[in-house]
Structures are given as C-alpha cells and as structure tokens.
C-alpha cells in the first residue's frame, strides 16, 4: 500500500512540534460531537479504496466504511480531499479530525499521530487451477511458473520487486490484467499457471469456480490498514475503535471488501 517519502514525515514532525505547544487537553471527540460534524481527510486517487465515480462523487471501500462510522457516531461527515502526502500533517496540525486513505501503520508516522485499530488486513493469495502439477510452498516458488496479476496493485508491485527485478521471474512470464477476474479466466483456460491477488476478492473468485484453488495465503505485499487519528486523543480512539470492532463483528467490513475488491 502507500508509504511515501521522508519529506512528508519531516513536515508532519515540524507541524506536530509547532502544534504541541498550543495543544488543548480537550478531546477532538468533544469538538466533533458539539459541531455534529466530523472532518475527514482522504486522497481520492486510490481505487478501489478511495476514488471518484463517473459522476465525480467519492466512492470506495474506505469511503463507504467512513460514512458508516460517521453515521454510528451520529454526526455529519465532511470530506476533505488532500494529496496523500499532506494527510498525516493535516491531522497532526489539527486541520482534520482524522484521515482514512489506506494507511499502513508506520513507526515514523506514529510519532506525530495515532492509529485506530486495523479495520482491515489485506492478505495475499496464490491460486492455481486443477490442472496444475507443480508445487508452491514458498511465495518465491511462483517464479518458476507463468504468473498473472491485476496491474497496478500491491501484488503487481511485490511480484515486480521481488521476482522480476532480481531476475527470478522473466518479464515475459508475468501477465498483467486490467481486472483480477480476467486473470482468473486465463488461469482456468491455462494461459497462466499461477494467479496472485488480494485474498478476499480471490476467495470470492474461487468460490465461483470450483476448478480453482488457493495454494498459498499470507501477508506479502500488504498488511493492516488503519485510520489516522490525532496524537494522544484516547477518547476519540476509543470511540473509533469501538465502532470498527462493531462493524467487524457484524460482517459489514467483509461485505465491503467483497463489494470493492472482487470486481
């Protein structure tokens, strides 16, 4: 997922230091409840997590999740679009109440802001068809076969960085598809031997096609994603974490994952 350059961290640090002197002890949660409005930052340029639909409205996994969280907090949701690099600094500087934009936990970021409980953990999976005779015990074993992946995804990045660039997997043996279901079709037809994808959408594909099976599952390119919260604000974190756990228990988040990640 997204981890960007040091400058952002440096800026966030500067902002946090300047702000630290002026921080009031009241929770942002009080402010949100008083104003009946929560202002949330996102960078709507990262489908399927956050992007614009054909009508130019924000949509995606994070967007719909946040809308539900705001609803359960009983407040109005105000979206603020900002480039990804500015989001942490904006929360640290008190410009935003929180940010949701597929943030991975990161030690440097943790110095200036807090993280909610992970609302979703993305895992990777390798899928093969019934005709597959090889073996995949380690993820690197995929380099011995023809591999398919959805282009531009974190899995595409993982395969490129770990298998193609070191010369383990010839570029010609990696097929990049616009959508993961196209890759699954080619897997069933035998044009590729292994498909790598996000576990949740891939599981949905396997459920539809009994000939396919998952042979490896684990965290390679991905990991837990969290909401970015103001530093040290226990009340707000408790409230957001409570709602996240509630939504996980109800299966709301899994349903969202299927909706957005298995097209």
């Amino acid at each position, binding site marked *: 997922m997204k981890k960007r350059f040091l400058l952002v961290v440096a*800026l966030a640090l*500067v*902002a946090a230091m*300047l*702000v630290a002197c*002026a921080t009031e002890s009241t929770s942002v949660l009080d402010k949100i409840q008083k104003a009946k409005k929560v202002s949330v*930052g996102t960078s*709507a*340029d*990262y*489908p399927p997590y956050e*992007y*614009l*639909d*054909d009508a*130019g409205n924000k949509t995606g996994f994070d967007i719909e999740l946040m809308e539900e969280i705001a609803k359960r907090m009983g407040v109005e949701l105000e979206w*603020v*679009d*900002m*480039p990804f*690099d*500015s989001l942490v*600094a*904006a929360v*640290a*500087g*008190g*410009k935003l109440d929180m940010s949701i934009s597929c943030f991975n936990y990161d030690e440097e970021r943790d110095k200036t802001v807090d993280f909610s409980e992970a609302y979703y953990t993305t895992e990777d999976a390798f899928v093969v068809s019934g005709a597959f005779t090889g073996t995949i015990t380690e993820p690197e074993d995929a380099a011995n076969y023809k591999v398919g992946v959805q282009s*531009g995804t974190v899995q595409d990045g993982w395969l490129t960085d770990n298998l193609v660039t070191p010369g383990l997997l010839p570029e010609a043996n990696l097929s990049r598809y616009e959508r993961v279901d196209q890759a699954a079709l080619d897997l069933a037809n035998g044009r590729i031997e292994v498909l790598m994808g996000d576990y949740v959408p891939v599981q949905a594909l396997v459920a539809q096609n009994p000939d396919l099976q998952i042979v490896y599952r684990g965290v390679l390119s991905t990991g837990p994603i969290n909401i970015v919260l103001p530093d040290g604000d226990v009340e707000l974190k408790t409230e957001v974490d409570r709602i996240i756990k509630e939504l996980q228990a109800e299966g709301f988040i899994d349903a969202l994952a299927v909706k957005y990640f298995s097209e």
Partner: protein
Amino acid sequence: MDFGQFISYIAQGTVLTIGVTLIALPSGLLIGTLLALLYVYGGKAASRIMNLYSTIFRGIPPVVLLFILFFAVSKGINLSAFWAGSLSLGVVSSAYQMEIVRGALLSVSGDQLMAARAVGLSRLHAIRYVVLPQAVRLAIPPWSNEAAIVIKDSSLVYALGVPEILRRAQLIGASSQKYLLAYLSAAVIYFLLVLLTTRLLNHLENKLAIPSNP
C-alpha cells in the same frame, strides 16, 4: 466517462487557479512595490532589511512556505487552505516583484531625480511623478514573466487540497486510469491561461509606451 466530462471536470478548477493568482499577484505587487521604494530610497538600514527579506523569501521553496503558513501559523488565525495558499504565494512573489521594481527604479537615471529636485519638486513628488511612471513602464516586461510564474505556481496549492486544475487532473486520472490524458488537459489549460496573460500584458506595454521614446 466520456471525453467531454473529463475536460469539463478538470476545467472547473480554472476558477480556483485564477482566484489564487488574482490574490497572490496583486498582493505581491503591492508589498513588492512598497518594499522596493524603501529599498532604493529608504536609506542604508532599510535597504539592508529589504535585502534580507528578498534573500529569505527567494530562498524558500514556495511549497515549504505554504505548509508552514497552513499547518503552523494558521493555528492562531484560522486560515482556509485557499487563503493560506494564495497568501504564501503572494509573499514569495513579493520578494521577486520587489527585485523587479527595484531594478526598474534604478534604471531610471539618477540625474532625473536631481533635475526634478532642481526645478523645485519635493523628493516625494520627484519619485512619484518623475521616476515611478518611467519605472512602471520598464517593469512591465519582466513583470509579465513573473505573472506567468505565479499562474503556474498556483498549482502548488493542490498540496493543501485546494481542488484546482492539477488536483482535479490527478483525481480524474486515478479514477479513469487515463493519467496522460488528464495531465495533458491540465497542461493545455495552463498554457492557455499563461498565453492570454502575457498577450494582455504585451498589449498594455504597447499602450503605455511613451510615443516619443520608441
């Protein structure tokens, strides 16, 4: 998403781009001109301070100043992203515009000031009625260059989330996966804005030219 929708979505940011420019450029001109007058006619101490001002603000990348103003300074005075961005660009531009006006003031011969004083004008009147009118004419060509730079620098406010042309191009590029087309559309809009501005200023330069002094 069809092509028309695409262009019209990005073009909606033009209003903000022009808005940012229309705040940054005149505020920079106002501050820059006042400071340039102080620099040239304000004595040794003033000229040292102005020199420092110019060195500092020309030495800071506009985007850094933008972040400082938005995330730090605006803690006390709650500035919106639009105003914080526009004003930072105005401050950066004022340092450049000060240098432009200073250069123009200095290129009007000092003898003229002396002659004006000799015929009985006060120092203030001599600057106001003799030097400044000539300096303004001399400043237009380099100033149109600065205007073009400010129009293009206005794209930096995207870093604060102001949905101007560049940010809109990024968003639509991401959702449609047509990045090249998105950035090309943005480039065309910027180019037209700069072209129009420099043409207008050329026209102004010709109109203001002193007839006897081709």
